[in-house]
């Protein structure tokens, strides 16, 4: 695996340098009216990080995100295992989950807001509904495609359903479940930020939207940059772990 990972690393570096070059070029073409250069953005982000307000917003976003992710993973695993163990329910529900996955969930946000009120609980609920479905779908498929010999062994040993899940199905499904959590992680983050952009009084998404009305391009670019770097770097890390799990 070593040479392949080195190649991936090299490509990633080339890609990042390339993206910065494209950004700088775009800045040179468009100019100060609507863009900032990479260097200006990073510098402003540094200044932003010295303000207390920024950390308040960041902490609020991270808190909402963490709780949402926990809910998405727990509920997703429960739904995935329940549907995976019961064949008919699994076959009936899978296409419906896929259909739910493809709808613009943002349309449901007003309903969530009416139910929870503007605040952290609405953000959490909205983040969680983005993450639950991928975790559930990956778990469902992992449980369904567990090698039959493992399940038969469990039956022969007369394991109870709880022990069966703990000792056989879960360990066998770990790589797939991890993939589900990786996708769920990204979608929960997107959901949380999206929720903040539509209606919130705190958080990074709110910061972005308030920057539009102030026409504060520095703020818009540095928060967008921060979000992209956060999402991309965490996802890359999870992807590396994911690939190792699948190659075991």
């Amino acid at each position, binding site marked *: 695996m070593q040479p392949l990972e080195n190649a991936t690393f090299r490509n990633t570096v080339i890609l990042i340098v390339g993206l910065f070059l494209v950004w700088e070029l775009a800045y040179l073409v468009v100019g100060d009216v609507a863009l900032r250069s990479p260097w200006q953005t990073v510098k402003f982000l540094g200044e932003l990080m010295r303000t207390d307000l920024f950390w308040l917003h960041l902490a609020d976003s991270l808190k909402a995100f963490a709780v949402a992710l926990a809910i998405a993973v727990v509920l997703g695993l429960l739904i995935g295992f329940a549907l995976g163990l019961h064949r008919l329910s699994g076959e009936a529900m899978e296409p419906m989950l896929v259909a739910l996955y493809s709808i613009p969930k943002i349309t449901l946000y007003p309903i969530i807001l009416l139910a929870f009120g503007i605040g952290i609980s609405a953000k959490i609920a909205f983040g969680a509904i983005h993450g639950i479905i991928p975790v559930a779908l990956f778990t469902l498929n992992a449980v369904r495609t567990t090698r039959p010999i493992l399940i038969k062994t469990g039956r022969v040993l007369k394991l109870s359903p709880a022990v069966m899940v703990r000792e056989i199905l879960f360990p066998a499904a770990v790589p797939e479940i991890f993939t589900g959590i990786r996708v769920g992680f990204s979608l929960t*983050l997107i959901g949380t930020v999206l929720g903040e952009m539509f209606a919130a009084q705190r958080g990074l998404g709110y910061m972005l939207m308030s920057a539009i009305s102030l026409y504060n391009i520095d703020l818009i670019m540095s928060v967008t940059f921060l*979000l992209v770097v956060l999402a991309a770097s965490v996802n890359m890390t999870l992807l590396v772990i994911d690939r190792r799990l699948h190659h075991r």
Partner: protein
Amino acid sequence: MSRLRLSQIAVVAGFILLLEALCLAGVIDKITMPPPHIILRDLFRMLLTGRYFGEIGKSIVNVLVAFASAYLVGVIIGTILHGHKTTREILDPLFATYYAIPVFAFYPLFIVMFGLGDGPQILIGFMLAVVAVIITTLNGLDRVPPVLKKTARVNGLNALQTARHITLPFCTPYLLTAAKLALAYAFIGVIGSEFIMARSGMGYEISYAYTNFDNATMYPLILVILLLSIAANSLLSRWERMLLARRGQG
């Protein structure tokens, strides 16, 4: 198969009945959500008066523009990348992590750059959709069996003929999958952007109704969006399954 259908219908019907019961029992209060039968009645009224047809039409046109441009550009880029191994390897990490990035975060920037109009919304829809098309196109081209390529070479087909008689027919299911994904993403992108900030469109009308506590408009419009996206998705999925079944892969 019919037993499966029945249980699916039962789940949906059960869910709606549950909502109805909860609303009528007052567990869900009227300000949060009207009972489903009222939503349905409001929807029919809305469709009869044709009040939001303009907004619905506008959103659909923007979705289609985003979809068509993303599809065209995606297939072309995918085809070109297939022939450039190094470029593709360099872009691979981008494709792998692209859908983890909150593309909507770019929306404020686009508003500042292009003004608050259809442009930024279509651009967000395009950005969400185009990478899915590129990835699926590459995936399809990767799977063209070498024996087919050899047959083309033996018969002396030129590039255009190979594309028409070999690659294109083989890749049809992938192109359809790409279309399905692109449509879903374009829809999410456009409606989502309208929601966050816009001057017209279905998403805008919903957020406007939300701020005015106008549930009689909000819920029917949400229903329209959900039904549109589910209908488009299931139509394309069915078509996809038919194609795959014909190849014996279904």
